[in-house]
């Protein structure tokens, strides 16, 4: 990077690619605030006072159940994160702290779930969920997503637990703390950063998934926002204001979360958490 010419070339390539990456997103959000005529006549201009028109948004939030779908998505995502972190941290603690005969075998058993996509078991998952009378419930989604995210969570968390100095636990044991209390009061607070990483990794794919909501909770007001937007788009396909507004309402919350958590996420990725 000593020569200014090559520095310019590097910035030109990265800048152009960045434009390519954000252009569609900016375009959709920008046009969602415009009147129909302006969407078609001047698609590349930002909304101006004379072209501003929030009609799309009033249609999205007026005629449809999208606000409820948001709530469903939040419930499913938060529920999954909670259950994954709780059961995952407990298992990670047991696997890294207690050396028993089936230890390695269990770790191998869990690693199947990292390599093989759980989607391939969908036929049996539907039959199972139907037998449990959980079709069109958010519970079914939380259970399946937790099973899907558990293996990676256990691996990230147990790697982290293994780094906690042994003396700390031994000291607690000498003080007469039970194993349950050691986990609850010493281990859990210490692994909080790793839990944040797991939460971010779990959150995005669960929020964005289309497959399991389509299979397990396609109707009955239990749709997640991703599926809800998909169905909404299908119905309003010719209403460009509504379509652009629906797309924007799906994009913006994720972007806000991404901006808040991007450091955590990139740090998680760059610390080799997905390897």
């Amino acid at each position: 990077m000593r020569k200014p010419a090559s520095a310019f070339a590097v910035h030109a390539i990265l800048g152009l690619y960045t434009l390519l990456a954000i252009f569609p997103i900016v375009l959709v959000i920008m046009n969602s605030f415009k009147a129909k005529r302006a969407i078609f006549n001047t698609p590349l201009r930002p909304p101006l006072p004379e072209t501003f028109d929030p009609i799309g948004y009033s249609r999205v939030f007026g005629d449809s159940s999208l606000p409820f779908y948001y709530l469903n998505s939040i419930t499913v995502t938060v529920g999954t994160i909670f259950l994954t972190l709780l059961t995952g941290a407990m298992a990670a603690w047991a696997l890294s702290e207690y050396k028993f005969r089936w230890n390695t075998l269990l770790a191998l058993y869990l690693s199947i779930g990292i390599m093989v996509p759980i989607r391939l078991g969908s036929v049996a998952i539907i039959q199972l969920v139907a037998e449990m009378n959980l079709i069109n419930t958010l519970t079914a989604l939380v259970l399946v997503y937790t099973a899907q995210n558990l293996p990676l969570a256990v691996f990230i968390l147990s790697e982290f637990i293994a780094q906690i100095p042994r003396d700390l636990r031994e000291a607690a044991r000498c003080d007469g703390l039970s194993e349950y209390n050691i986990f609850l009061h010493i281990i859990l607070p210490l692994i909080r950063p790793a839990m944040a990483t797991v939460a971010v990794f779990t959150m995005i794919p669960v929020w964005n998934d289309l497959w399991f909501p389509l299979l397990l909770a396609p109707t009955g007001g239990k749709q997640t926002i991703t599926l809800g937007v998909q169905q909404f788009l299908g119905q309003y396909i010719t209403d460009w204001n509504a379509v652009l507004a629906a797309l924007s309402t799906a994009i913006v919350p994720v972007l806000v979360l991404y901006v808040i958590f991007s450091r955590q996420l990139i740090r998680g990725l760059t610390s080799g958490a997905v390897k």
Partner: protein
Amino acid sequence: MPQGTYLRLLVFFLGPALVLYSVFSIYPLLATILNSLYSHQKDGSFLWNGLGNFHTLLFDPTWSEPFWNALKNNFVFFLIHMLVQNPVGLMLAALLSLPRLRFRATYRTLIFMPTMLSVVVIGFAWQLILSPLWGIAKMFLQTFGLGFLFAPWLGEESSALITVSLISVWQFVGIPMILIYTALLAIPDELIDAATVDGLNQFQAFFWVKLPLIWPTIGLVSVLTFVNNFNAFDLIYAMKGALAGPNFATDIMGTLFYRTFFGNQLQLGDPSMGSTIATMMFLIILIGIMVYLFLVQRRIQRYSF
């Protein structure tokens, strides 16, 4: 610690995770494979059929034609990712990891952004952009005097699959970029300094010093791409529906599986054949992972710093 207490501890801590994981992940996988060995009767019962379903899938023309078509399309889908997504990801990572680069974090965050969004949103946004109705894509080509190149790419059989693949590449290029970028950052500066002292320029140093060191990561990125591509569904479904039009030109294993299992305008749902296709996908993915483990990973020398 007494044996009983120890056992109780293990059950308490491991139990919930193992039960959830076994019931909702491992059991369904095994049951699906088992399902593929039975045939679904009209009255809803299941009859043992051995490998009959696989024979039907591979040799009965009504099944084998869509199957080979989907498999071929899936390979094209995968090849485009390997030829475009991963090289572009590598290039972006190489540029991002250059020393003393300004705006590094900004570029990284913005380029990674599409990866965060739902495939449904991405698919629809691109559908609008490429639509002749809105004409954004056409307008762009016209600015460069290339207006004659414009066609409804998503609607034509010859170009639909490539277009959908490139949209997927556009969305997921952030993953190889970040993984390779991380591997590049882990290379100690002394190595590059030594190479520079020996007279290599930045470009040569990248090719002769850094690239050989990140082969393990490139292997990992390739196997991740393979697994994700042969498991893909959302984008095709969001853009082209379950029928993966035009005329099944964008049909891949995931959409074929969905259609077979759930049924559609053309056929009734069939859980047995659905399971058979899922088992085939499982085998394909397994072969991919095996190739990675035995061929790639064994040959790779691991460097420790």
